[in-house]
Structures are given as structure tokens and as C-alpha cells.
């Protein structure tokens, strides 16, 4: 049951994002998507008791177990806190969006993207399998990309989306390396297993995870994507880029903290990156004039604060970190929504033009001021609690540093409390920008009247209620956490126990007595307040100051640099010439083969049985080589084709010499058909122009050719030089050819019986050739010179015609004979088929091709189809009577004149092959001849 609940946390939004309302009611029904986070919140609340008891709920389904992949989820205190954040803030954001974009037709799409994100985020915090976690992790990047670029007609939105996606995707990739390294080392992807065994993971792997976490949580120097992400609609900024997604990195660091508790590098890296981000983000936030930009940079800073606390790893620091995650979600969510409402009502987010909204929006003013004060860390608000703890944490770290060597030793001077100083500085900055935010918006005198004066008259009209209520609730939470510390403590404790291993010793309270932390808080208020009062002295200068070289510049220059680099390298080798690409392949082949061959020939020993060559064989081989070289040397088309024919004929002779009568027959007949084919098209090719290439290219071509030939020779030499491995395959075929398949010609039996299925595929491929040829011919421009008929009729020869008439039937009968005896003697479907094609071609050459095809009873394609069906049908016949495809049946029959005849069903298959070969060959020749 609990497993089902966890799954439904992920599945509900996933299914919800698939729901699409009908066009007519889309706008009105869109807010119904808010049901999903509400349901989720109820589920999360129902799981409270389990989590409070410190239990862990797990569920797992096999995905690819042999690879260590499981769809496994687990929920403990830490996950629970995040699911609460995702669903809780989700509820407010969803309701707010309904009012914020009430008239926007893209509202439904926004909701569906938000639900996709919600599912992904739930997956991240619930996944137990690291790969599953990464999948959801990337999915949050994808949905964030979609949401930032939601207003895709704006260039800045697209740039922001790409920047955010690019940086987080790089982080995800680095994290994948880390995950794979963990698997290689420990053989599991399950977080729970790793945590239960307190596995020690090497620092390098830890750094991989940290890169992922830092990019996601916008830590220095990856922070640049977060301000750019503010192009997203404001509810998105509040949800993804303040409350939830940017916390995924924090979740990961917190989740892995127990594994790296003793790793000084981990803790030093996390602490220092967090500190730099904290201060730098604060500085940037103070400079901003855009409300959302201010909030974005302040988010960067606050995330840095939490990262810093997670890096300290002490009890107080960890507790403060989790508490601040909770606080930050409440007040920053409220502030972002405030920025949205202000923009919605006043038409601008520019601090220089805003001001004086207090009398117009009293409720909003109160809520936003409270949230800002919580961010500034003033009592008695939630932010004060975490700020106090934060001070205690850094003071403790600095004291520890003074006493003995601490993990952050290289960061801190021996006596100077660097960390505390930086913490106070950053807090003053926080104080400053918090005050700038609410003072500049609500209290400062309106330096410029708001563009939409309707704000005064309709300040609290119906839509504004929906735009203010979620802010009031979120601010209320920020106040509540401060006034009732035990509530915050109860929420934080289960998560804390997961990270730290034991329940916390400390208790939250507004008044701790006169502690150093309280002193620091007072100091912050004094310094921050002072800075606020004199802000006019430096703020203007700071805003106008443009750094010569910012991190954004680095990003943009890097991006264009990469693009140029790849354009340049691509231009180097992508010449657009196919011949060049073949050259690359061949050079790669030569180089790739030479390395293993080299090592082979170093330790080779000649062991094969070698057949001693006869003189005539040597002569034939020499002739073949010469014919091959002739092909290259000649510039005459006819010599080229004839030389190729010579090579083919010599092949046939070799087949005769070395015991392959079937091959010899096939080769001779195929040569005949090919020759006709070449002669048909020959005169339509241009002359081969001499010296088409520069001498250098020619030399290069010859080099590649010689190299390729040499490599192939050496490879074959290497393959044949060793002792031959005795194989059972030939002896099996030889022994069973007659026993099982009733044939004496083993080659034919292999083709039609043992490997009949292969042959089936081969004749199919072969018949595709005719389809291709026909398509090419049909696709061509009609009405061009019809070369075939011209060729045929231009040489009418009575002698040829008489001879053709005489031989046609002889050849056909001989083909039939070859077909029928094929099972027992050289012959068979392939050979008979090509022979028939030769006979028919001969007829076409002697007579008019078109008149010949009129006499043909069937079209070639029909013959091919019948042949394929017959071959397949023979095979299927054996299935019908319960044997595997293409099993042969053998029977003896006594025919008059022929005597005892052994008939095998494979014969039907062979006839199918015959028909396919006839049809295809004829189809090709005829297609060319008639065109």
C-alpha cells in the first residue's frame, strides 16, 4: 500500500501531464490540473506518521536486473521533506498560475509542462536507483528548458533556456560518469545499499556528483544560468527556480553526505563553493533593478548558504541547512509570486519605476514585507531561526579551526575567523537587498507613476484576490515557522536523522540567551541597516559599473568558440566528395589492419597444408592479375567491360579446376548475362577521359589501392597460414546430405534444404534488385531516346535470328534438365534460372525486344512473385504437417520412361528459386532494353 502511494506521487503528475482538455473548455478547465498537487500533498501528509517513526518505505520493480537496473523508489525523512516542498509549493503555484495567466491561451500548456516537471522532481527525490535518479534528473532539466523557453517568441527566453539546459546537462553527464564509476566499484546502483553499507567512495567520484549538484543548484561558477532563467513566467520562476528544482542539487549533496562524511576534499569543496556563491550572489543581488533579477541572484546566494552549511557537516550546520531549505521555499516562493503580482498589476518590475504601492495593495505589502524580513533574518520570523543556526555553525567551524586541524583548514587563516566574517558580510548583503526589495516596491515614493493607473481602482478586484492569497499563505508559513519553532523542528527532524544518523540534540527556539550568534545577528542588523540608509551613495555607482569580463561573457565566448572550432574542423575533412570519404575509410582500413597483422607476422609459423601449384594454374592466375590491371589501365569502355568479363571467365575456370562444378556453371552464365547488360548501356556513358586527376592525386590513389590490396592479401595469408581448425560442419553436411535431404549434390542440398531459410532471404533480396531497377527506369524522364530498341534493331541479322530460333528450345530444355537434376548433380534453380535468362536475352537481341515481350505470357515481376510464393509455400507446407519450416519430405516414384525417380519437396523450393532468378534477370535486362 505504501509502495503504491510512493509510485502514485510520481505517476499522478505524469498521467496528469498527458491529459488534454477539448479545445472549447481548455481555458476554463485548465485550473483542474491543480488537483494533482493537492492530491499529492494529501498523500504526503498521510505518510507523515511513517516518516516520523523513522521508517523507510521502499518498492522496487526489475527493469534490467542483469545491468543492475531497477525501478526502485524509497521514501525516508529527507525525501519526505522534499515531496512536501514539491507538492506544497506546487499547490500555491498552480492556483496562482490560474489567476496570473487567466486570459492566456497557453495556460493549459504551462500546466502540463509544470506537471511533467513535478513528476520528474518527485522522481529525483524518491528514486533509489542512481540511474533512475539520473533519468528523472535530466527530465527536470528538460522540463525546465521547456518552461524557461515557454514564451518562445522571445529571443532572451530561448537563450536562457539553452543556457540553463546546456549547463545542467553538462553537470548531468559528469554525474553519469560518477554513477558508472560507483557501479564499477561496488556493483550496485541502489542508493539504499550504498548507504546501508556506508560504502567508501573515492573523492574523484564524489567530485563528479558535486559537479552535477553544483550545476543544478546554480553554484559558482555555474550560477549564470539562473538569472537568465527568469525569462520564464513568474509562477515557473517561483516553483522551479526558487523552491524546488534548484534544490535538487542540495538534495543530492545531503543524500550523499553520509557517504563522504570522512572525506576532507568533499567537505572543503562544498564549503568553499558555497561560500563564494553566497557572497557573490549577494553582491549581484544588491545591484539589480529588476525585481526578478534581484530575487534570482538572491536565490543563488541563499543556495550557496545552504551548500556551505552542508559542507560543514556538523550537527548544527546540517540542521540549519535543512531548516533553511524549508524557510527559503516559503519566503522565496512568496517573494517571487509578489514580483509576479506587482508586474501583473503595475506593468513593470523595474525598481527605478516602482514605488508607492503600499496604499494600493495593503495586504500584499504586509505579506511581502514579512517574507522579505524573514529573508533578511529578523526575529521572530522563520529566517531568523536558520540565520541564528547558520551563525552558530560557522562560529563552531572557525573555533574548531582554531583548536585543531579541520577539514576546511586551507580555506581559513589560522587565527582570523574568515568564515564568520564572510558569513556576516553575506548576511548584511541579504539584509540590504531584502530591504531594497520591499522598500523600493511598496514604501519608496513613486518616482514614476505606474504605467497602468487601474491598479488604484481595481487593486483588490477579483483576480487580484487569487494573486494575493497564495502569497499571504506562504508568508504566513514563513512567520509561523518563526513563531512556532517546534513545528519547523518537527518537519526538519526526520530529514536530519537521515543525513546525520541520529536525532538532533539541539532544540529550536527564538530566544537562546545571550549567545555569540545573537551578537552577530545584532551586528548584521546594524551594519545592514546602516548600509541601507546610505545606499544612495554607492548603489547607483554599483549598478552602472559593468565588469569588463563577466562569467556570462566566458559562457558566450566559449559557446561561439566551440562553434567556430567545430565548423573549422568539419570544413577540414567534410569536402563533399564521396571519393574523399571512401579514401578515409580505406586509409583507416589499411592502418587498422596493419597493426594487428604486424604483431601476427612477428610470431608466425607456417603450418598449413599447401597445394603445389601447377604451371597452367600459375599462368591463369597471372592472366587474371593482368586482366584486373587492364581494367585500371584502359581508357576504352569496351576494353574495360571485356577485361572484367575476362576476370569472370577465369573465375569460372578456377572453379572447374578446384572441384566446384556448380559455381563454374553459374559463373559462366552470369558472365554472359552481365556482358549483355554492360553492352546495352555502354555507349551511353561518356568517354573515359585520360588523366582526370593531378599526378599527385593519382599517386595517392595508387598508394591507397596498393595498400588495400596488400592488406587484404596479408590478412588472408594470416588467416590461411595457421593450422586449419577441424570443422564438423562439412562432414555433417557430407554425411547427411542423402540421409536427411535425399540429395547427392551437397552444394545444392545446402542451398535448398540445410540452409534453405538463408536462400529464401537471398532470393528475396535478389528480387528487390529488379524492383530497384524498374523504379529507376520508371522514374526517369520519359520520351528520351529509347536506347534498347535502337541497339537491338540497328543490327538485324538473319543468321542471328535463325540461330536464335533454333537454340531457344534447346536451351530451355537444357535449363529444365539442369533444374531437375540439381539435387543430385551440378545444376539447380540458380543455374537453370540464369541459363533461361541467357536464352531469353539472346532472343531479345536477335528480335525486336518489344515484340519479344509481347510473346511472353507473363510479366517478369509476376514470375518473381510466383517464384517467391512457391518457395515460401513449400516451406510452409512442412509447417502444416508439423515439421519445422522447410523440412524436406522424400518419396520414390516410378515414372514411365524415367524409371525410379526420387522426388523431394525441396524441388518445389528450387523451382521457386528458378522462377525468381528468371524473372529478376529478365526484368532487369528488359527494363533497360525497352526504355
Amino acid at each position, binding site marked *: 500500500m505504501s509502495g503504491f502511494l510512493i509510485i502514485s506521487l510520481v505517476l499522478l503528475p505524469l498521467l496528469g501531464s498527458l491529459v488534454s482538455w477539448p479545445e472549447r473548455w481548455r481555458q476554463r478547465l485548465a485550473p483542474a490540473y491543480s488537483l494533482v498537487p493537492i492530491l499529492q500533498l494529501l498523500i504526503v501528509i498521510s505518510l507523515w506518521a511513517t516518516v516520523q517513526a523513522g521508517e523507510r518505505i521502499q518498492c522496487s520493480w526489475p527493469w534490467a536486473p542483469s545491468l543492475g537496473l531497477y525501478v526502485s523508489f524509497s521514501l525516508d525523512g529527507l525525501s519526505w521533506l522534499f515531496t512536501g516542498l514539491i507538492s506544497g509549493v506546487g499547490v500555491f503555484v498552480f492556483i496562482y498560475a490560474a489567476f496570473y495567466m487567466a486570459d492566456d491561451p497557453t495556460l493549459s500548456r504551462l500546466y502540463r509542462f509544470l506537471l511533467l516537471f513535478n513528476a520528474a522532481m518527485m522522481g529525483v527525490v524518491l528514486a533509489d536507483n542512481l540511474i533512475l535518479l539520473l533519468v528523472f534528473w535530466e527530465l527536470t532539466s528538460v522540463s525546465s528548458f521547456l518552461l524557461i523557453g515557454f514564451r518562445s517568441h522571445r529571443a532572451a527566453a530561448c537563450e536562457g533556456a539553452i543556457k540553463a539546459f546546456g549547463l545542467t546537462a553538462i553537470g548531468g553527464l559528469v554525474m553519469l560518469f560518477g554513477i558508472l564509476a560507483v557501479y564499477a566499484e561496488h556493483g550496485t546502483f541502489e542508493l539504499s545499499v550504498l548507504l546501508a553499507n556506508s560504502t567508501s567512495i573515492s573523492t574523484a567520484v564524489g567530485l563528479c556528483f558535486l559537479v552535477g549538484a553544483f550545476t543544478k543548484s546554480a553554484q559558482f561558477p555555474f550560477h549564470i544560468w539562473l538569472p537568465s532563467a527568469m525569462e520564464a513566467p513568474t509562477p515557473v520562476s517561483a516553483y522551479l527556480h526558487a523552491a524546488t528544482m534548484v534544490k535538487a542539487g542540495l538534495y543530492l549533496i545531503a543524500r550523499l553526505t553520509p557517504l563522504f562524511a570522512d572525506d576532507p576534499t568533499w567537505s572543503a569543496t562544498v564549503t568553499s563553493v558555497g561560500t563564494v556563491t553566497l557572497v557573490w550572489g549577494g553582491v549581484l543581488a544588491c545591484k539589480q533593478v529588476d525585481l526578478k533579477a534581484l530575487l534570482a541572484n538572491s536565490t543563488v546566494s541563499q543556495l550557496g548558504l545552504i551548500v556551505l552549511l552542508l559542507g560543514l557537516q556538523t550537527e548544527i550546520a546540517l540542521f540549519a541547512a535543512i531548516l533553511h531549505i524549508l524557510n527559503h521555499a516559503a519566503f522565496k516562493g512568496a517573494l517571487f509570486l509578489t514580483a509576479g503580482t506587482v508586474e501583473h498589476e503595475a506593468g513593470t518590475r523595474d525598481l527605478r519605476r516602482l514605488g508607492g504601492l503600499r496604499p494600493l495593495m495593503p495586504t500584499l505589502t504586509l505579506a511581502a514585507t514579512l517574507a522579505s524580513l524573514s529573508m533578511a533574518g529578523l526575529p521572530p520570523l522563520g529566517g531568523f531561526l536558520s540565520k541564528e543556526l547558520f551563525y552558530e555553525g560557522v562560529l563552531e567551524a572557525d573555533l574548531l579551526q582554531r583548536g585543531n586541524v579541520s577539514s576546511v583548514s586551507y580555506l581559513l587563516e589560522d587565527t582570523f575567523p574568515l568564515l564568520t566574517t564572510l558569513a556576516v558580510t553575506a548576511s548584511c548583503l541579504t539584509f540590504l537587498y531584502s530591504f531594497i526589495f520591499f522598500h523600493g516596491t511598496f514604501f519608496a515614493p513613486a518616482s514614476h507613476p505606474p504605467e497602468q493607473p487601474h491598479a488604484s481602482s481595481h487593486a483588490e478586484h477579483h483576480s487580484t484576490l487569487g494573486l494575493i492569497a497564495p502569497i499571504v499563505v506562504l508568508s504566513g508559513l514563513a512567520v509561523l515557522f518563526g513563531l512556532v519553532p517546534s513545528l519547523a523542528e518537527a518537519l526538519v527532524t526526520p530529514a536530519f536523522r537521515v543525513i546525520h544518523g541520529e536525532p538532533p540534540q539541539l532544540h529550536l527556539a527564538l530566544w537562546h540567551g545571550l549567545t555569540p550568534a545573537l551578537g552577530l545577528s545584532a551586528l548584521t542588523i546594524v551594519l545592514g541597516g546602516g548600509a541601507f540608509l546610505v545606499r544612495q551613495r554607492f548603489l547607483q555607482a554599483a549598478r552602472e559599473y559593468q565588469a569588463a569580463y563577466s562569467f556570462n561573457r566566458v559562457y558566450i565566448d566559449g559557446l561561439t568558440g566551440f562553434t567556430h572550432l567545430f565548423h573549422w574542423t568539419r570544413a577540414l575533412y567534410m569536402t*563533399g566528395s564521396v571519393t574523399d570519404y571512401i579514401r578515409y575509410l*580505406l586509409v583507416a582500413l589499411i592502418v587498422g589492419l596493419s597493426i594487428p597483422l604486424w604483431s601476427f607476422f612477428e610470431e608466425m609459423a607456417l603450418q598449413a*597444408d*599447401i597445394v*603445389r601449384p601447377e604451371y597452367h*594454374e*600459375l599462368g591463369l592466375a597471372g592472366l*587474371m*592479375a593482368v586482366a*584486373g*590491371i587492364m*581494367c*585500371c589501365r584502359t581508357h576504352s569502355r569496351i576494353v*574495360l567491360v571485356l577485361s*572484367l568479363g575476362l*576476370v569472370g571467365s577465369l*573465375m569460372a575456370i578456377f*572453379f572447374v579446376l*578446384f*572441384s*566446384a562444378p556448380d559455381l563454374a556453371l*553459374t559463373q559462366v552464365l*552470369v558472365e554472359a548475362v*552481365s556482358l549483355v547488360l554492360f553492352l546495352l548501356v555502354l555507349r551511353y*556513358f*561518356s568517354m573515359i*577521359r585520360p588523366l*582526370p586527376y593531378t599526378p599527385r592525386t593519382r599517386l595517392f*590513389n595508387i598508394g*591507397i*589501392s596498393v595498400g*588495400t*590490396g*596488400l592488406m*587484404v*592479401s596479408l590478412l*588472408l*595469408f594470416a588467416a*590461411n597460414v595457421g593450422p586449419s581448425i577441424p570443422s564438423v*560442419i*562439412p562432414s555433417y*553436411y*557430407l554425411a547427411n546430405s*542423402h540421409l536427411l535431404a535425399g540429395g547427392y*549434390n*551437397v*552444394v545444392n542440398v*545446402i*542451398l535448398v534444404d540445410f540452409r534453405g531459410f*538463408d*536462400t529464401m532471404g537471398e532470393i528475396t*533480396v535478389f528480387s528487390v*534488385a529488379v524492383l*530497384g*531497377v524498374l523504379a529507376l527506369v520508371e522514374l*526517369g524522364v520519359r520520351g528520351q531516346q529509347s536506347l534498347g530498341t535502337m541497339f537491338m534493331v540497328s543490327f538485324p541479322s538473319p543468321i542471328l535470328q535463325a540461330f536464335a530460333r533454333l537454340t531457344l528450345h534447346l536451351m530451355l530444355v537444357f535449363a529444365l534438365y539442369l533444374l531437375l537434376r540439381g539435387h*543430385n548433380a*551440378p545444376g539447380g534453380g540458380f543455374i537453370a534460372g540464369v541459363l533461361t535468362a541467357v536464352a531469353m536475352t539472346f532472343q531479345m537481341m536477335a528480335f525486336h525486344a518489344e515484340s519479344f515481350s509481347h510473346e511472353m505470357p507473363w510479366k517478369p515481376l509476376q514470375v518473381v512473385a510466383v517464384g517467391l510464393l512457391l518457395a515460401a509455400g513449400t516451406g510452409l507446407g512442412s509447417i502444416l504437417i508439423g515439421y519445422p519450416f522447410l523440412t524436406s519430405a522424400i518419396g520414390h516414384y516410378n515414372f514411365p520412361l524415367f524409371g525410379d525417380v526420387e522426388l523431394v519437396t525441396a524441388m518445389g523450393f528450387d523451382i521457386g528459386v528458378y522462377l525468381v532468378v528468371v524473372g*529478376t534477370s529478365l526484368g532487369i535486362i528488359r*527494363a533497360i532494353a525497352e526504355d
Partner: protein
Amino acid sequence: MEFVIISVIGVLFGCGTYLILQRHLLRVVVGLSLYSHAANLALMISGGLERGNPPLLTTEAPYVDPLPQALILTAIVISFGMTAFATVLAFRVRQVYGSDAVDELAGGEE
């Protein structure tokens, strides 16, 4: 004899490569045909060379390995189909584009 044939295969492969690298389409097609001849020869020697021992059970044992022969037989027919297709393709290219030089056709799609 094996080594003689291996050398011939090398020559045929070299010649085929040289032809494939040419610009005239007909030569490219011929190069492909030379490749398939060379490949068939390579298959032939893989079964061992024997004179006068065809794999016909009606003759006396011993027999040469029948498997490479079955492979070559289909290879011959298929390579015929391929050569035919390539020839018609080249011929068609010549007809439609008015050129049969590889480099003159390159980059036409951009």
C-alpha cells in the same frame, strides 16, 4: 597454390580500389565487380583447395568442403543483381544529370 591465389586476390582488390576511386561511374561499377570476384576467391580458399573432388556424393570420397561453394553460389547471383542495379543507377544518373563523373555530381543536394 593458396598463396598464388591470395596474391591474385590482392591484385584484384587493389585494382577494384583504384577503380572505385575514379571519377567515371562505369569504372566505379567495374571496381565493385572486381571486389566481389576477389571476395568469392577468398571464400574459395577458405574451404581448402582440392583438385577433382567435387562435393557430389555420386563420386568417390574424399570431397571438398561444400559450404564455401554454397556461399559463393548465392554470392555470384546476388552480386549480379547488385552490379545490374549499380549499372542501371549509373546509367540513369548519366541520363538525368548529363554527367557520369563522380565529382561533378557531388554536393548537388546542398
